[in-house]
């Protein structure tokens, strides 16, 4: 049976194979190392800053990181980041679902292709250009809307408006909504397109109108896709820097009115304070960046988990 002289060589891998698989595995590991390094380096600098902080990092309404002793807190930044992102989400998600439905179910086929293409192109417009447009075009055009909101809803306090330039969290939220629209649209559109044709045809055969088809087959099928797309959009909105830095007129106060200027976001604060920051100031900015990092990590991780679960699920459909 076996001829010992020419026994099949076991476990001998060619040198080229070993090098190549080692390289590719190594770069995969390098990627993980980078992720870990981001967390580690930011944490080290953040720990230094927080150790020297004379205020409360979470509740202080102040950012004097360059003073001695340094006093700074992220309360205002957290508020501004969350509020502007929530405004962006509430505006963008319904519209994005509308556009996605328009592309997948309403528009004439030809037009749908072109629009899908344009949406993808718009996702590539750099954020600084949105910022420039927002600051020089959107801000002056917001005053009419804000006056109107103030006239009818000013009594709520949230929509009070004093007529100053509209460089407020609301304008930021609207601009962010415009910016995250393409990404939410393109993800939901892909999900809607995967709706099983049989489901839709079954609904049509039962005499459903087009809207009933969408409500009974497309939306339930795409629900997790919509959720994860929205969270991807949220991740973008949370970390957006330039558009906020150009539009917002920042201050370290929480203004009850969303229409009046003031407030700030993590990313905007880092970008606008950086040039004046000394070494402690930089560490403080890094500490706030760490909070932003963790926040986006959670949101994106959750979105990806939902997508992954859906993948397993839809395999059985």
């Amino acid at each position, binding site marked *: 049976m076996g001829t010992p002289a020419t026994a099949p060589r076991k476990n001998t891998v060619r040198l080229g194979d070993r090098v190549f698989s080692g390289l590719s595995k190594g770069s995969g590991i390098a990627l993980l190392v980078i992720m870990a390094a*981001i967390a580690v380096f930011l944490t080290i600098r953040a720990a230094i800053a927080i150790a020297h902080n004379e205020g409360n990092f979470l509740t202080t309404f102040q950012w004097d990181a360059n003073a001695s002793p340094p006093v700074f807190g992220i309360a205002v930044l957290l508020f501004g980041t969350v509020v502007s992102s929530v405004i962006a989400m509430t505006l963008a998600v319904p519209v994005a679902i509308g556009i996605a439905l328009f592309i997948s179910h309403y528009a004439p086929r030809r037009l749908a292709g072109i629009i899908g293409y344009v949406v993808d192109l718009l996702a590539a417009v750099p954020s600084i250009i949105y910022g420039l447009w927002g600051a020089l075009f959107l801000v002056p055009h917001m005053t009419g809307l804000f006056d109107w909101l103030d006239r009818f809803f000013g009594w709520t306090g949230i929509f009070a408006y004093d007529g100053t330039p509209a460089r407020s969290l609301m304008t930021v939220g609207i601009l962010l909504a415009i910016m995250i629209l393409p990404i939410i649209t393109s993800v939901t559109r892909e999900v809607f397109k995967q709706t099983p044709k049989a489901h839709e045809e079954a609904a049509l055969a039962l005499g459903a109108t087009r809207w009933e088809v969408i409500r009974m087959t497309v939306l339930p099928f795409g629900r997790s896709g919509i959720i994860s797309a929205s969270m991807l959009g949220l991740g973008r909105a949370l970390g957006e*820097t330039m558009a906020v830095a150009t539009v917002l007129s920042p201050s370290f106060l929480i203004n009850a009115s969303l229409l009046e200027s003031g407030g700030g976001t993590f990313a905007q604060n880092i970008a606008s304070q950086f040039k004046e920051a000394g070494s402690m100031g930089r560490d403080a900015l890094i500490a706030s960046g760490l909070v932003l990092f963790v926040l986006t990590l959670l949101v994106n991780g959750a979105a990806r988990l939902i997508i992954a679960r859906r993948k397993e699920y839809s395999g059985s459909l």
Partner: protein
Amino acid sequence: MSQTTVTEEPPRPRPSVRPTTLRRPRLPGWSRGALLLGSAAIGTATGLVAGLESRVQWGLIAALVFVVGGFALTSAVEGRRQAVDRLAASLVWTSFLVAVLPLASLLWETIARGIPGVSWYFLTHSMNGVLSWQDGGGIYHALLGTVQQVLLASVIAIPLGLLTAVYLVEYGSGRLARAITFFVDVMTGIPSIVAGLFILSMWIMMMGFGYSGFAGALALSILMMPIVVRSTEEMLKLVPNELREASLALGVPKWRTILKVVLPTAIGGITTGIMLALARIAGETAPIILLVFGNNMINGNPFEGAQSSLPLFVYEQWAFGTESAYDRAWAAALVLIAFVMILNLAARAVARWKAPKSGR
């Protein structure tokens, strides 16, 4: 079989008037156009009478009348279900129009305000010695910086990204591969400013290097890597297994199979992905502010000294807040958008040109 049912059911009283058709009444085809005209007229009339100066308000009133009127009319004639259907269709169309307006305005403003400023002089001169309120100056230093930083970033990110994707598709399985896949996805969502802060804390604060184009390129490569991995992975998965098996059956080592068979097959899609990633990082501003710092003069050496870049140039000019600086900002924004769009269109052209022929 019909006998049983007939015997059990009592005869129904017949309606006095027999319907001539089983269909429900429908609105005639021209009703939609009429409604559109009518609501436009109402919008204009209300606007004129109430003295609303903003045309946007006229449009909004007309749109509201159109949607509500359509709903009421349909529900009166065709019934509630049809009316809801009509309403949903109107809302979908409206959301499309609502989204198109700002995006169209963005492109229009950039082009209209940018074109006067773009000239050969603008492209070939730096801002050296030009004060913020003066006309003139150009973006040569910024263009140079952007190109160098993007190239350096891709030199780092493309090999790492390609190899990682190869690992995930060809070698990886189990825990490590799953972890890498997950973190690549998460990495896609890292805010650019966080990537900038990371390089700042490591490269500049810890290792003591100064501001340079290279530091910016490091941060950009972190942003670029996951995009390259993702798109390459998708493309490699599309390569049919028969090709790999045929090559391996001929005794070709696996690494040569990957290099000579798998990668060349997917090269079109991979190129597209890389170009899209380039377009994405070319427009990044935040890490550049932190790491490259900005410079009005031409600095051809990305490894030493502050540089500039196109997005940073736009930001700086905006921050000056003078009319001539705004003009420069718009012109540079136009150049940047053209740069990004050309990369995008070229990427899609490559994708179409190299697309696997169907029916093979």
